[in-house]
């Protein structure tokens, strides 16, 4: 009999990972995590309502005068769900504008369903306070995560991976009433692209699901082009209204803190360890593939790997982006024929997507969605990701800090764990806080999917991966036992850290890639 607990957040039930998770999330029943690949939903996906072309202008001109008018004509009302997207990362201007207009229209209790939020979205806190927004379902970075962590949000936050967001929409777990898509270029019919225009940001893959499944779709652009907008990443046939505004986003802010190469000697050492490991274990071979996420260490990994590929005379079969100038240089120097890009991390990525035929834009559907007929993530030979914490069983946390505060989103992190070899590149401690623990504060990724923990002190290989343990024999990289590493770090830091004291209240649920609940985050005190 699994354990349960009654709290102010309702009943909590124990899931297959031994974590207590809410049985209901925002009035909706939730399935507790049952193990990797163990949840087997049946039935059909959902679909958008039937529309008639006769209800739309035969001229194809769907422009309306303002964002407010578009929202009004979508029938925006209390309790609805609005989807927005983070192609501009910390330079997004549209999400804030949408909720300003929603507030002006007197709407309340809205659910904001962003593909991710950033520090630039701090103004949304005012709408959470005033009641315009009821709660956020989406990765919360920085100030919004902090707000949620303190238990100030009325509803429960729900964090999903990029693939999990598609899955939740497709499976009908989240119904998007109105999707607002910030488009760097669009025509009056609603065809839109992200790779050109004065605010070019690359691709619009995160908005694709919303464009297919939402009741209403608004395209907001600052660069209206004559019909047809080519190429089109979003099809106008899915779009209700087109709104022209002065500016949709600030592309120079796409490069936020997590997309710069590290200058820290320790982190460079971690990146180098990872690259050497990939080389020494033979993962680096003709036609191999890799993905390195955002984050300075992962970017540095790419730079080291590129040198090793040149030394070994090896070219990749494909690489997965987040694209950046380093991946683009690999493409343009012939070290890979293709970048399968999910997100552009800098303006070189944007340029390359526009100019290089081998720079292919993708979406969470092709790359990450778990409830599809396969996805690209599992086809990647090796992926380098970060984490806030890992534990001696290789479980990992990517959303909360050891003090219990929710400060990061999941991104594509969970989806990428299905790669052939998953390496988490982490410092062994940060400002006295050990990163290797007995048990992670919040479980985001199960240890059975995590193959290597790479630190500046050396690498720990998951004993389940006997093949990797074998392949790493004779490697120049120090290979450590994870429990011994933990002992060393605890010694340095003055003992194992105390566990953060948290309140009873559940402030956010963490969903696994299949829509089940793998863990939850409790409120922290002031």
């Amino acid at each position, binding site marked *: 009999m699994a354990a349960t607990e009654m709290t102010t957040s309702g009943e909590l039930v124990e899931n297959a990972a031994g974590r207590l998770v809410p049985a209901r999330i925002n009035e909706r029943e939730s399935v507790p995590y049952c193990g990797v690949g163990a949840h087997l939903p049946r039935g059909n996906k959902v679909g958008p309502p039937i529309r008639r072309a006769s209800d739309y202008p035969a001229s194809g001109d769907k422009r309306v005068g303002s964002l407010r008018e578009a929202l009004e004509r979508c029938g925006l009302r209390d309790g609805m769900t609005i989807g927005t997207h983070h192609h501009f990362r910390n330079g997004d201007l549209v999400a804030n504008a949408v909720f300003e207009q929603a507030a002006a229209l007197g709407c309340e209790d809205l659910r904001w369903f962003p593909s991710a939020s950033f520090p630039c979205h701090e103004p949304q806190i005012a709408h959470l306070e005033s009641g315009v927004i009821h709660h956020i379902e989406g990765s919360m970075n920085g100030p919004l995560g902090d707000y949620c962590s303190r238990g100030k949000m009325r509803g429960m936050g729900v964090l999903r991976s990029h693939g999990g967001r598609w899955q939740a929409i497709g499976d009908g777990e989240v119904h998007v009433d109105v999707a607002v898509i910030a488009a760097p270029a669009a025509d009056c019919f609603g065809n839109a692209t992200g790779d050109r225009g004065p605010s070019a940001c690359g691709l619009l893959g995160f908005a694709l699901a919303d464009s297919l499944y939402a009741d209403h779709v608004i395209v907001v652009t600052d660069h209206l082009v004559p019909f047809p907008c080519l190429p089109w990443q979003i099809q106008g046939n899915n779009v209700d209204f087109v709104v022209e505004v002065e500016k949709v986003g600030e592309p120079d802010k796409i490069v936020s803190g997590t997309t710069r190469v590290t200058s820290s000697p320790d982190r460079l050492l971690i990146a180098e360890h990872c690259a050497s490991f990939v080389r020494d274990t033979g993962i680096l071979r003709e036609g191999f593939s890799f993905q390195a996420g955002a984050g300075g260490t992962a970017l540095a990994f790419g730079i080291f790997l590129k040198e090793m590929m040149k030394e070994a005379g090896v070219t990749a079969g494909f690489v997965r982006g987040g694209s950046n100038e380093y991946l683009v240089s690999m493409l343009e120097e012939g070290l890979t024929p293709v970048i399968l890009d999910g997100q552009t991390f800098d303006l070189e990525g944007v340029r390359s997507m526009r100019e290089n035929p081998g720079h292919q834009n993708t979406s969470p559907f092709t790359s990450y969605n778990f409830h599809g007929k396969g996805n690209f993530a599992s086809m990647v030979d090796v992926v380098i990701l970060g984490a806030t914490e890992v534990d001696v069983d290789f479980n990992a946390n990517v959303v909360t800090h050891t*003090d*219990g505060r929710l400060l990061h989103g999941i991104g594509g992190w969970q989806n990428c764990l299905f790669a052939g070899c998953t390496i988490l590149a982490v410092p062994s401690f940060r*400002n*006295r806080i050990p990163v290797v623990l007995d048990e992670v504060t919040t479980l985001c990724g199960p240890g059975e999917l995590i193959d290597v923990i790479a630190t500046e002190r050396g690498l720990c290989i998951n004993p389940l991966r006997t093949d990797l343990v074998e392949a790493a024999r004779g490697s120049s990289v120090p290979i450590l036992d994870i429990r011994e590493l933990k002992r060393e770090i605890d010694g*340095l*830091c*003055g003992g194992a850290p*105390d566990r*953060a004291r948290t309140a009873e209240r559940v402030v956010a649920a963490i969903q696994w890639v299949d829509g089940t609940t793998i863990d939850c985050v409790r409120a922290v005190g002031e």
Partner: protein
Amino acid sequence: MSDTATTETGERRAAEAGPRGERVRSDCWIGLTPELSGGVVLEVSSTVESTYGRSIRALCEQGARALGIEHARIRVEDGGALPFVLMARLEAAARRALGGLEARWLPECAQACREPARRERRRRSRLYLPGDQPKYMTNAGLHVPDAVILDLEDSVPPGAKDTARILVRNALRQVDFRGAERTVRINPGSLGLTDIDELADENVHLILIPKVESAEEVRAVDARLRERTESAVYLMPIIESSRGVMCASEIAAACERVVAVTIGLEDYTADVGVPRTEEGRESLWARSMIVNAARAAGVQAIDSVFSDVADTVGLRRSVLEAKALGFEGAGCIHPRQVRVVHEAFDPTPEEVLRARQIVCAFREASEHGLAVVSLGSKMIDPPVVERALKTVAQAVESGLLAADWEESGD
């Protein structure tokens, strides 16, 4: 820990130690106000309150007892300082607050810190670590420099000399530098002798003496070391002036403890009154002088630092030039310079191959009882054999050659 403080004679005043502010990481600020009654009142704010708040309070209470402080207000503003750092900051604040305090609060000396000094060792790289900035110390050994230098001189502002000295002492007792030679650059003159009083017996392997202009200065350090420790502690004088260069021979031969001599080119070029250039023509004579003086005294000649961290190509060029002049090592101001320096000082594959051939020829000649070694049509002189043996030993130490290369026939 016993209560050994004698503060009755000293002056009491409010004092502080460590950096302060919201941006401080891996370090802490401690303010200490001696009181006449009321016990020890502790006030702690920390970025790691939820995980180590308890531990910080317990450590501070232990420190107050160890330092014999009965009544004081102690305020800690912590940004994630490791215990050896917190201990150093508290002791420094206490010593500033209680003039004449004799008690010390020594962290346990870790096993990894007990490796004795060795005269003969490679000194290709020495990585400078600012003595008052703990965050660079903890992981310095991971970058595998031949030596780490805990610097008390130029990287420490005058007002922090005492706190840095205590921090460096604690680092010498606690930080695992992973086999790197454990060295300290002391201050010049009498302040340097005070540095030695605190550190001589803390398992420091080598002391760098800055701005040396005479053998006398080296002998003064030697004498002080003899008073303070029975352990082997070696010396590396740094010559940084025209006067020092003129006395290089006497400095290199000043005493038995000297194992290497190095040159500080920033100060030297300033003294001569010329800008320091990348090609270094202005210091060629001085550097050659150092090499010659060192070799004459039978010690190592070590080059200055290369200050553009981003320019690895320039660094490599500079090190290859230093090697060609006869230097055996150089300073590093960033961990990423270490590998470049090692690779440049290591023998090249061609040098290793040639050395192996000579060593093999030498072995063969010895086996056959021949006094003359020859390789092909060339006769090999004994000094060339000596150098070849050294090159082969270096190659083995750097992993460029298997230790059993002669047996394996590889």
